[in-house]
Every structure is written in structure tokens, then in C-alpha cells.
């Protein structure tokens, strides 16, 4: 269509991104590695690996195993701790030229609050993402975000303290719409859906689990339909809340599908690990799709999914 001024730029809850395709947490290195692999100016954003208050050495190897159309992994959130991160890694990430979202993780409310306070007024940091899939040290539960009230409590504390937007990254371990609603009510700007799924790899020939940590997480194309459903359900319940769709996105078409389901932007994790050029290729693919359909912006994809007129009463099956 002539006359359409087309742009990939998106506004996600006040965060302006040059493209709707960012690198998911834990898949972008330490700020040093990306330079030779991809043009950071063509990235929507880089989400940092999850940072904790104290340094973490992470889990024993092997940390990675293949499974059909996916990978099972566990890094145990290896990171240098917030102090070193802010001094060394963050400036490098910012220096790449891409907007930076810092992912934070912890086991107690206090950790999240202190991490948030240490991340205020850092040039180049456009948002905070809370990783709340880890162990709850205070309440002794396996997963922080497994209850809507607890997730809301943590995310709310972060949001109250933060001067920049906060995205709550949710695992699929409870009623995701309920957890999402709780986080948004508590002050989250938006949601990242979804975190990788809990998984186990077994190597039959050696009678052993495939990972050194025994249990791990599944990501990659294998989880894409699961992520689509979560995005769709939450977007249907809260159409005005920005959602960053994450899980198995590998091509422009995958990203378009995620945005048709209700995402405002997408994150690319495993596909970046497999091919660091993937996020830029995904963005190029989105642009091609917009051109083909005569749409001006990725935002125009939202709400375009044509649903059957009257919902089938048995559809909830």
C-alpha cells in the first residue's frame, strides 16, 4: 500500500523500543560478546541475565541437553552479583547502543527491594524485569510466583520503589491470569509471558539425569504454543496491559503470531543461543509481514486475530 509510513518502533507501557524484538534474559552474554555477532542498533532491547544480590556460581555441568525442538537447561542464574554487574557488565550492555532491561532475581522480598534500589537512575536502563520463578527462601516454597498474592507482593514492592517501568516475568505454575492480574494491580507496568517450563532430561544409556542440577527448564520452539496460549489468555483478560511474548520465537512469523495473540513485543531466547542473528532476522520478518498486509506498525497486529463470533460453550475444554 502506498502512503503508509511503516515503522517497527513500539511503545510498551512508556518504554520506546526501536523494534518489537528483544533478546530474552540469560541469552545475551555479558555485553562483550554480542558486538561481533549482531548489530545492536537493530535490536528492540537486550534483557540482561538475571542478577542477584550476591554473586552466584550457578549449577554444575552439564547445563544443557537437547530435546525435540527445544533445549533443557539450567544455569542456576550464574551472575557476578549486583555490585559487579552495575560496575562492569551494565555499562558494557548499555554501550552496545540497544535499550537495556535489567532482570532481577532473588529469594526474599528484601533482595528484590535492594536490587531495585541499586538500579535506579542508571543511564540506558529502560525497565526492570522481575524473574520470580526461583525458590522462595522466606516462605520455604519451591517457586516464588506460585501464588498470586506472593507474586503480587514481590512485584508490588519492586514497582513502588522503581522509577522506571517494571515487567513481571511469569512462569506457568499457577493460574497465570490470576497471577498476572495480581502483579498488575500491585503496580507492574506489564508482563513477560512466559518463563521457561520446568523440565527434566534423562540419559537412558547412562542411567543419569542429563543435567548436573538434575532438574532444569525447557525452552525453544517446543514451548511456543504454550506461550501463545498464556499470552492470549492474559491479553484477553487485560487488553490494556503491555505483554512481552516469550517462548519459542524463532522466525518473523512466530513473532507475528505472538503479537496477534496479544503481545506488544516479543523476546527471543533459545533462538538467539542457536543463532545470534535470530532477533534481527525475526524483526526483518515482522517488517515484511507488515508490508505484505499493508499495516503501519507492529501495534496494529494486536487485536487482529479473527475469533469465531460466538464463543463455543464447549470451548473451555
Amino acid at each position, binding site marked *: 500500500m502506498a502512503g503508509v509510513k511503516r515503522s517497527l518502533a513500539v511503545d510498551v507501557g512508556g518504554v520506546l523500543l526501536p523494534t518489537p524484538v528483544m533478546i530474552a534474559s*540469560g*541469552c545475551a552474554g555479558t555485553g562483550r560478546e554480542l558486538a*561481533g555477532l549482531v548489530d545492536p542498533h537493530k535490536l528492540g532491547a537486550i534483557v540482561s541475565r538475571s542478577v542477584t544480590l550476591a554473586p552466584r556460581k*550457578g549449577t*554444575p555441568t552439564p547445563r*544443557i541437553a537437547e530435546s525435540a525442538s527445544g533445549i533443557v537447561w539450567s544455569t542456576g542464574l550464574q551472575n557476578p552479583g549486583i555490585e559487579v554487574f552495575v560496575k562492569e557488565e551494565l555499562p558494557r550492555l548499555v554501550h552496545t547502543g540497544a535499550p537495556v532491561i535489567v532482570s532481577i532475581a532473588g529469594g526474599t522480598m528484601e533482595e528484590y527491594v535492594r536490587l531495585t534500589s541499586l538500579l535506579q537512575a542508571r543511564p540506558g536502563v529502560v525497565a526492570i524485569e522481575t524473574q520470580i520463578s526461583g525458590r522462595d527462601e522466606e516462605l520455604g516454597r519451591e517457586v516464588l510466583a506460585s501464588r498470586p498474592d506472593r507474586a503480587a507482593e514481590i512485584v508490588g514492592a519492586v514497582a513502588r520503589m522503581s522509577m522506571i517501568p517494571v515487567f513481571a516475568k511469569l512462569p506457568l505454575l499457577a493460574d497465570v491470569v490470576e497471577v498476572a492480574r495480581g502483579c498488575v494491580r500491585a503496580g507492574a507496568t506489564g508482563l513477560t509471558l512466559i518463563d521457561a517450563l520446568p523440565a527434566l532430561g534423562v540419559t537412558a544409556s547412562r542411567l543419569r539425569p542429563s543435567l548436573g542440577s538434575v532438574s532444569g527448564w525447557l525452552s*525453544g520452539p517446543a514451548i511456543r504454543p504454550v506461550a501463545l496460549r498464556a499470552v492470549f489468555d492474559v491479553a484477553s483478560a487485560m487488553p490494556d496491559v503491555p505483554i512481552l511474548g516469550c517462548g519459542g520465537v524463532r522466525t518473523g512469523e512466530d513473532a507475528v503470531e505472538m503479537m496477534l495473540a496479544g503481545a506488544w513485543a516479543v523476546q527471543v531466547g533459545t533462538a538467539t*543461543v542457536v*543463532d545470534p542473528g535470530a532477533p534481527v532476522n525475526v524483526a526483518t520478518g515482522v517488517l515484511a509481514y507488515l508490508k505484505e498486509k499493508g499495516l503501519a506498525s507492529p501495534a496494529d497486529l494486536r487485536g487482529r486475530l479473527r475469533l469465531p463470533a460466538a464463543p463455543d460453550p464447549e470451548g473451555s475444554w
Partner: protein
Amino acid sequence: MRRTRAEILSARRVGAYHSLTLVAPEVAERARPGQFVAVQMPEDRDYLLPRHFSIHQASRRGGWAGTLEFCFEPGGKGTTWLANARAHGFLDVTGPLGKGFAYPKRLTNCLLVAEGHGAASLYFLAQELLVREKRVDMVLGAGTMERVFKPIEGKRLSQTNAIMTEDGTLGDRGTVLDALPEMAARCGSEVIYAAGPAPMLEKVAAFCRERRIPAQVVVEERMACGVGLCHSCVVPVARKDGSGYDNLRACVDGPVFNPARVLWDRWMSDVPTMIPTPPEGLPVVRSWPG
């Protein structure tokens, strides 16, 4: 490091191994011994991760200029697919990756110890050492004859040479570790380079520590990205100042490490077994069922 679509110049069998030579001048010109390449898997398959292989040859000069060779033994999905690659096909490769071997400045007598495909990177190293007028000796080993990697090339590149197979089908019966003490003494080895499975590297490391011989080893930890993005491939390495250790990424901080600083016990503390081994004294059921 460069990502390139490389044409396959030749695909050959070398004993139990397959060898692929690619036309990849951007990679070949920068390659050093010890470095590796990542080979992308086809997009229409359900196995996603690139596979990583040591650079066996990289020619900068002469008729083979701009070519790169790597070798592998087909086993899993990716290498089985690669084993069907033919000349004039194309592969997406990224490289050279990682830090290569350092060459000794003063010391001259180098002993290269390799098991299985580990020899691939050490022959490349041998050539570079010979150019620097170092003495090269080798201990090569494998389970059986076909798995001794290019023994004739090994002989050609080294002054003294020991070949060990576990079944005695080539050279002497035993492992490279059996031949190591005598070879090191006979050749007056001042520097040791080793490549092979981790348990063998650990024993080479212990030998070098005991004799105070400086050494470098190539490790093969499981990798995903191969370029430092994902923290999958870590090896615990002691800090220089003695204040503990760091989990360093083998793909960017290695794969060549000083074995004296690798915390072997920690690294190789194996994945826990799912089925506990029966305590001593209990009968072990060997056939199943019945």
C-alpha cells in the same frame, strides 16, 4: 570470529572418523590451533543446537589457502546428519571460536598427548610449533586401531612417537597415560599439551603438577551458543590470586586451559546416578528379567 556459508570442498573417511574440508577463508585466515568452529544444524530438524569441532587444519598459504578442516566420529543426531554431507554442499559455520594454545617462548621440547579425536587439534598445533623450531614428540591413543586419528600424520609431525590402543590392535596395549612417564623422560619434555576426554586430562594434569611441567589442555564441555551468550559451558578454574574459583565459559575463556588451575574434582563430580548402585555385599542382578 565470522559466520559464513561455506562450500564443502571434500568429505572423506579417516578410519573411524569423517573429515570435512570447507572453503572458508574468513575463518581459516584467523584460525589458531586449539580453536574450534560451530556448525549450524539444518533448520527443518528437531535438533537445534550447533555442533562444535576443533579446527584440524587451516591453510593460509599455498594451493589450499582459505580452507578449513575438522573431523568427527558420527554418534548422535547432529554428527550423523553431518556424516552425510558431500562435496559441493554448504554448511553454515562460525569461527574461529575460543582461545587457542599459547606457544612456549624459551622452552623447546614439547610433548603432545592425544586420545581419540583430540589429535585433530594437536596436529595443527604441532605444525605451528615446528615453524617455531620447537621439538615435537607425541603420545597418541584410542580404544582401537580405527580410532587412532591419522597415525601416519602423527608420526610425520613428531620426532619420537608412541601409539597406544586399549586392545593392542595398533602400537602398544594400554592408554596414553601408561606411555606418558617414559615418553616425557625420554624426550626431555619441558611443555605438555593434551587433548581428550576429561578423565584422561585430569591424570595428565596430575602428572604435570607432580613433575612441575607447564601444560595446556583442551576441554570439551557441552556447549550451546559457543560464543559466550548462554553460560552453558562452564569449567571451574582457580583464580590467580588464590581467592577461590570462577566458573569460566569454555567457549570464550577456553577451550584451552592451564590444567593446574582447573578444579578437576569439582568439574567432574559427575551427574548423580538415578538408580543407586547396590551397596557392597548385595547381589548385583546382571540379566533382566529373571
